């Protein structure tokens, strides 16, 4: 068993003739919470999709549990994915199924458990995220935060070893954000998970992450513990972490001279 649950080596990924990720190398140690942070559009979600082999890189390797996910046949890839859970930015709940059925879905697809056991497992998962009482609601009746928690319960129902969170805090109110931060930390400890959080919510992510990678300009521009990142003096990392309006990432999109555009 390798020390790193996920290892990315020399990864290049392009979309529409443009490098989204350029020579990315990173390691996700087993049992840790690792955050991947960076401005919007910097390729963070793409990186998660590459780890789960929803996308394939042009060059480079993605090793999960020591296995190159891009070398796997479809059936083996699906076996590998049973080790992974992912919380999507838009929660990804099935709109035609109730909360209960959403959480029961992976169990019904992958196990032959009796209805009684499925019911108990689902209720235990919902209890863990505080939504046992919402089991009969439909996804359209849930707030954004509740939908995220249901999706979290569903992602955890098959006991994955790796959890990936795609922008879990985006658009959440402060209470929900606090609940999610606590849940992610708590679940990682109790279930002995390895967690990857993709986020640009600096304070929340830094409060629970063991290690942080900062991505910008299609590459990793900084890495370290939350303290090291907070004290990083490189202009790009500094601008992102402290939310400065101007810096290496300019406020203005490249354009002609202002006076010329106004025809003055």
């Amino acid at each position, binding site marked *: 068993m390798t020390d790193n649950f996920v290892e990315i080596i020399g990864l290049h990924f392009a979309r529409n003739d443009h490098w989204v990720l350029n020579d990315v190398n990173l390691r996700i140690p087993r049992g840790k919470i690792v955050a991947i942070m960076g401005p919007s559009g910097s390729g963070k979600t793409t990186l998660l999709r590459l780890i789960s082999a929803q996308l394939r890189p042009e060059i480079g390797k993605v090793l999960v549990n020591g296995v190159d996910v891009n070398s796997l046949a479809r059936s083996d890839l*699906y076996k590998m*994915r049973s080790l992974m859970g992912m919380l*999507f*930015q838009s929660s*990804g*709940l*099935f709109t035609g199924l109730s909360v209960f059925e959403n959480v029961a*879905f992976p169990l019904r*697809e*992958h196990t032959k458990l009796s209805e009684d056991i499925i019911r108990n497992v689902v209720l235990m998962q919902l209890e863990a995220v505080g939504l046992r009482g919402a089991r009969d609601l439909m996804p359209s009746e849930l707030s954004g935060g509740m939908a995220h928690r249901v999706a979290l319960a569903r992602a955890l129902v098959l006991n994955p070893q790796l959890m990936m969170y795609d922008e879990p805090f985006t658009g959440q109110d402060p209470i929900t954000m606090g609940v999610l931060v606590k849940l992610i930390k708590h679940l990682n400890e109790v279930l002995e998970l390895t967690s990857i959080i993709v986020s640009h919510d600096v304070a929340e992510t830094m409060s629970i992450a063991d290690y942080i990678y900062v991505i910008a300009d299609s590459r990793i521009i900084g890495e370290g513990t939350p303290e090291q990142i907070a004290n990083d003096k490189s202009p790009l990392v500094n601008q992102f972490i402290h939310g400065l309006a101007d810096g290496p990432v300019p406020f203005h999109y490249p354009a002609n001279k202002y006076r010329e555009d106004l025809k003055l």
Partner: protein
Amino acid sequence: MIGWIEKLGHAGLLFCEHVGVSGLFLLRTILRKPRVIRLFPLVVEQVYSVGVLSFVIVALSGLFIGMVLALQGYNILERFGSVEQLGQLVALSVVRELGPVIGGLLFAGRAGSSLTAEIGLMQATEQLASMEMMAVDPLWRIIAPRFWAGVISMPVLIAIFCVVAVFGSYLVGVEWLGVDAGQFWSNMQASVNFRIDIVNGIIKGFVFGIVITWIAVYQGYYATPTAAGIGRATTKTVVYGSLVVLGLDFILTSFMLGGW
């Protein structure tokens, strides 16, 4: 001139690419280890949403088309003193052509657009991606039941369309305009051949069902995951579906009349 040829070539390559991708998509949907027990309830659920919910529009259209055909047919046949041929005229028109074609167009508009929008929205809200992450193949769980439901529903809807259209023509021709009921039915029975007319109509329905549903699920699955993208995909389903129905109808009819 060179630029024009370049654009034409590019469009041709793009077309070939779409045909190839959609062909592989269809093969991956239907050519897989049969899991009939798991698939059956999903298909039944989709037959309800694709077929049963299309019943009203198909039946009403059939009724009105049958009534109009009877009215127009009576008007013309009356000039030649052969109104007793009304049943034959309506039945042959509906069973051979109008039933499959109008049924197909209605199916593309009602069920095809709904399938595309539903699958496109599932794509946009990451429901299909989350299914992939749960190691459940969306082609098996989402696309295959909808595809088979479309293939099953279409011939049945066309049969319903034809029956209701004949009934509509009976109401107008016999009950309203006074054509003799015995002549109406006996002429119809004598002229409609089960093998040549009804079976061919069902074959057309079956083929249209495959093609329209294939277009609908493909457009939904590969829709750009935005509001505009889903709108475009839905429009494409209706436009491509309708054109393919009309084009294929000509090809199938020419084969069928050619005595294949």
